[in-house]
């Protein structure tokens, strides 16, 4: 349990060093067409109360019927988290009054969730990795939305989101820094997106985090935690943790005590603040929902879903390292999105995997980032990029020309081979032409030629001049060999 504390992760207080301990509850919207217990659409947006069935509005006598795809999605997610799948789980009612909670209770899973313990392997930028324990995953209903700024005395209630299926994924308090927390959410999001069980769109609220933060002196027992509700971006998760940890440290170093409470992160003010309104008299009176029978399925159902699972990022990464000889770091970058990994594989197929990775990561991703585009929007197809890699490998173009070619294909499209042909971009391997250029440069620079005998590094200058004279098309190997011979450099 007590892994040695990494001093780099500690936060320096005024008096002591502090360790921050973080656990997370992620609410991930299940990818499905219809809601968890009704036939209304889950589509984002919509006119007020348009994606609402009489069940979602809790009309008298309306009853929930579970969406089997939401069950399958939860099981797939559980499998992706290497978690225990519970063949029997129970839906409970969590009772409280709130205007966007039409039934007066949320249908959730309290004692017997559909998915039990699992784990997520998280990679850090420095190449290290660690495991975060998953405590459970359960299915539950989302609430509706209250708008508070439409009117001075009224709140407006829209139930379009009411009843949308959520997976609440609860981690163990295994995270020790905001960086780790961000990396965990990033990785979890990657897994969900691979599985196709949640689109991970944090801007649309498809993924929200409740972050439990406490601090302690290294080696001491866990401190009192505060829960920061509904943080909706990975950047804010980091900021919220830093802010909250410092708040708690300041209190403790002042001799104060942390109150266990629910807090809200205000990114504008850069502070967390207490949500006292939600704190009052919490007694959810959980009990099994008598409108629903226990959720039961057999192992064969789980097995059939397991068979249909895609290759997940960890497995893919390992395969890329093994089959393509990539560094773990590069492989990690490539598998971060399923679409990127697929793109890379298409480029690498039948080619040099490392060269392909260089081109995908450095040129393509670099350019996409600059333009703010996703891999799905790339103007350069895997086929086109593959051909560029081929042209380099075949010695038809130099690496430098290849970058120009990439720019042309990016901007104008077209078959790279044809572009090279049409624009005369082939590299010159004809030694006669290269020799003429070399001779001309030697003739014009006798002083440099003289120096070169003592200072062989001047070779680079001659290479540069030759490449310039040949419009960059000279085969660099041929240029090198010729110059060495003519300048008498060993």
């Amino acid at each position, binding site marked *: 349990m007590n892994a040695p504390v990494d001093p780099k992760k500690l936060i320096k207080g005024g008096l002591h060093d502090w360790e921050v301990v973080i656990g997370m509850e992620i609410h991930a919207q299940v990818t499905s067409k*219809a809601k968890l217990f009704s*036939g209304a659409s889950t589509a984002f947006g919509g006119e007020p109360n348009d*994606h609402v069935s009489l069940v979602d509005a809790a009309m008298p006598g309306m009853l929930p019927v579970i969406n089997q795809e939401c069950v399958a999605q939860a099981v797939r997610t559980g499998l992706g988290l290497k978690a225990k799948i519970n063949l029997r789980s129970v839906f409970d009612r969590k009772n409280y009054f709130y*205007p966007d909670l039409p039934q007066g209770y949320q249908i959730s899973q309290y004692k017997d969730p559909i998915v039990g313990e699992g784990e997520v392997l998280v990679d850090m930028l420095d190449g290290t990795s660690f495991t975060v324990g998953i405590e459970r995953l359960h299915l539950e209903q989302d609430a509706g939305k209250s708008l508070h700024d439409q009117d001075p005395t009224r709140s407006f209630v829209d139930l379009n989101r009411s009843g949308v299926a959520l997976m609440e994924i609860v981690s163990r308090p295994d995270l020790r820094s905001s960086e780790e927390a961000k990396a965990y959410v990033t990785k979890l999001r990657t897994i969900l997106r691979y599985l196709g069980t949640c689109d991970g769109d944090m801007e649309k609220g498809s993924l929200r985090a409740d972050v439990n933060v406490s601090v302690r002196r290294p080696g001491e027992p866990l401190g009192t935690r505060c829960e920061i509700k509904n943080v909706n971006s990975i950047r804010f998760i980091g900021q919220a943790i830093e802010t909250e940890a410092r708040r708690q440290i300041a209190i403790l170093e002042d001799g104060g005590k942390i109150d266990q409470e629910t807090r809200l992160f205000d990114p504008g003010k850069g502070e967390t603040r207490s949500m006292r309104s939600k704190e009052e008299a919490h007694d959810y009176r959980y009990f099994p929902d008598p409108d629903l029978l226990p959720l039961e399925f057999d192992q064969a159902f789980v097995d059939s879903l397991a068979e249909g699972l895609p290759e997940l990022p960890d497995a893919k990464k390992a395969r890329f390292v093994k089959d393509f000889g990539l560094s773990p770091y590069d492989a990690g970058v490539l598998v971060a999105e399923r679409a990127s990994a697929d793109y890379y594989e298409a480029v690498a197929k039948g080619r040099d995997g490392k060269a392909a990775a260089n081109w995908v990561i450095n040129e393509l991703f670099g350019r996409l980032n600059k333009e703010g585009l996703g891999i799905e929007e790339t103007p350069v197809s895997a086929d086109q990029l593959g051909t560029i890699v081929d042209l380099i490998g075949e010695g038809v173009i130099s690496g430098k020309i290849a970058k120009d070619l990439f720019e042309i294909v990016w901007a104008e499209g077209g078959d790279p081979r044809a572009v090279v042909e049409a624009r005369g971009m082939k590299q010159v391997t004809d030694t006669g032409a290269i020799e003429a250029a070399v001779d001309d440069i030697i003739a014009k620079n006798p002083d440099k030629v003289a120096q070169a005998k003592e200072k062989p590094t001047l070779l680079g200058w001659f290479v540069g001049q030759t490449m310039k004279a040949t419009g960059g098309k000279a085969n660099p190997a041929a240029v090198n060999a010729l110059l060495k011979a003519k300048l008498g450099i060993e």
Partner: protein
Amino acid sequence: MSVDEKTVRRIAHLARIAVTDEEVGPLGAELNTILAFVEQLGMVDVSGVEPMTSVLPMAMKKREDAVTDGGRADAVVANAPETEDNYFLVPKVVE
């Protein structure tokens, strides 16, 4: 177990039912009568007994993942005490 006035008020608030001072006493007495009546359940040996979750054994029915409902905001808000543009209106909620 018996409930005192404070408990009656707490339960009433949890259930979101306003109670007047005059109601608290009699309500507490009634609740205590009922609780005294159910007290006899304590005599039953229930060790090893599963609590009933469904009265008859059957598999839970499930729905296909298809959009079969919605698009009737008018009907959804038709009976609401206060609405605007198909939103339900409530006294302002302070978060």
